[in-house]
């Protein structure tokens, strides 16, 4: 279970100027739930995702995942938490363009130094699941947008995380590819993963497998 309690998140623009990204946000997401965070650009959706993934810390308040206060974790523990629990699909995919598909997908496994057969097994599993096996040796920079997104999804799943986070996953895709992504999402939901998506793409609204849609406006959750 993911809990955000009394979250305040501010960004300092300069010494005298602060921007409030989230203001007194309280949110609970149950295990296996698929939640869509809706809202305009700059409303604070991505900041919520960033806090759940421990990519940043709240200015005040607590983020609790499976009863662990991850907002208090030191940097190295936060990395381990991400590696073991979180699969993050970024808006711009954040792949390393000069590496191959295979090398990008296994990146989260590299620090663990697992045996070669274990790496291959995990790689094959996610590459097949997200239909990118045939491009394993291609450089990411030579792939289409849809293919790059599949690589990003495969990378996010290679550690079999409990929580999947996607930030504007269809922002760079056409409608057909967006619908493909929604089908992938349906499959992941069937695997009982907790999924949190931040989007303002209407394609995600009123989907039958989405458990909740939450509106975020000016750093606050609109009930």
């Amino acid at each position: 279970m993911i809990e955000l309690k009394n979250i305040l998140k501010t960004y300092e623009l300069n010494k005298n100027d602060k921007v409030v990204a989230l203001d007194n946000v309280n949110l609970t997401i149950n295990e296996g739930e698929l939640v869509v965070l809706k809202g305009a650009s700059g409303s604070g959706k991505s900041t919520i995702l960033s806090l759940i993934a421990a990519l940043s810390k709240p200015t005040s308040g607590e983020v609790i995942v499976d009863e662990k206060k991850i907002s208090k974790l030191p940097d190295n523990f936060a990395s381990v938490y991400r590696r073991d629990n979180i699969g993050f699909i970024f808006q711009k995919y954040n792949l390393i363009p000069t590496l191959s598909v295979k090398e990008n997908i296994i990146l989260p496994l590299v620090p663990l130094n697992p045996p070669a057969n274990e790496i291959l097994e995990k790689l094959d599993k996610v590459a097949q699941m997200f239909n990118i096996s045939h491009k394993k040796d291609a450089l990411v920079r030579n792939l289409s947008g849809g293919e790059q997104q599949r690589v990003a999804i495969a990378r996010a799943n290679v550690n079999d995380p409990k929580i999947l986070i996607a930030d504007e996953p269809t922002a760079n895709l056409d409608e057909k590819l967006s619908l493909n992504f929604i089908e992938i999402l349906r499959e992941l939901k069937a695997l009982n993963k907790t999924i949190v998506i931040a989007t303002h793409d209407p394609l995600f609204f009123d989907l039958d497998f989405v458990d909740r849609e939450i509106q975020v406006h000016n750093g606050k959750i609109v009930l």
Partner: protein
Amino acid sequence: MKNKINIYLVEYAINAILRQKSKSFFIVFVFTLLTFLLTSVFFITNSIRYELDSTVDTLPQIIVQKIKAGRHYDIDVDAVDNILEIAGVSDAVARVWGYYYFENAGVNFSVVGIEQYENQYKNSFEKIASKFDLSEIDAKVSMVVGQGVKATMHDSYYKEYFNFIKPDGTLKRVNIAGVFEADTQLESNDVIVMSKDTIREIFEIDESKATDIVVKVANPEEIPMIVSKIKLIYPDTRIISSEDLKVSYQNIFDYKSGIFLALFIISLFTFFIIIYDKSSGLSSEEKREIGILKAIGWRVDDVLKEKFYESFIISFFAYTLGVGLSFAYVYIFQAPILQNIFVGYSQLKTSFELPFIFDLQTLFLVFFLSVPIYIAATIIPSWKVATLEADEVIR
């Protein structure tokens, strides 16, 4: 059981180097060049220092030269007897020697007259005196030459004899009786040893004159006192003790070391500019990559390990390449250009071979001046970025 070295991290580091081919090539090129320059200079100075130390060890204790109008003139041979009477002097010998300029090759030969009974010469000459029968050399008008002299003469087709041009323009033919090897090439490479009579004829030196007188003192502690006594008897002489010669050699070497220092400073300066440039910040691509790695679960130390492998591979490769090239340049190719700077007056001296001196200290010094500094310059900015919030770096 897990491997201690994470092979995937090493592979990632190698990939990272190969991904930035032109940047990596530039760093390897500059790093190799600087390592090569520094190591070559160290190797050359080590070799020359060894040569000079060996030379200084074999110098005569006292040399007496006649000075007139501030210039060196031939001294009366009779002075030997007077010097021998000074208490503490165990031996004194009049030397006949000079420089013969061989115009054809543009080099100077050091021509030394020697007799068998003399024991005042440098160790290497004493060995020559014992090895070759000098009386026979005298009878056959022959000479023994250093290896450099032999090579120079061979180049001019003098294989069995050499024609010296006397001051009156006539020729003096002297046979080459043999070639000697000495302890130090710097000292003996350009040397020709022949009988005193022959050398007197070539340089037209009168029987009653000598180039200088070398004096041996039983107790080295008494050298300063003997020097002052000789000066009292012969005020028109310049008396050089082995200590003075050591200082003189050292001064020449220090002067050369000044040039070395300049090269050294330039090399380090260039290196530190690169280091400064590197440590002053990472490119936005490099920062973003670190941010991505952090976001997908790499810890700070995973990032730093990867950066360590990356910088170690590149710097150690360049260091090894630089040292290897330097070995070949100095000891196989005999350091063209740089040797001339350090040895000096090369146009007038026959060439000599740099002796192979394996100095582990030099290798360590160059290593510690380059590799760890480069690694630190790579790791520190990466550490600065890696310790920021991943979200901030990616954004």
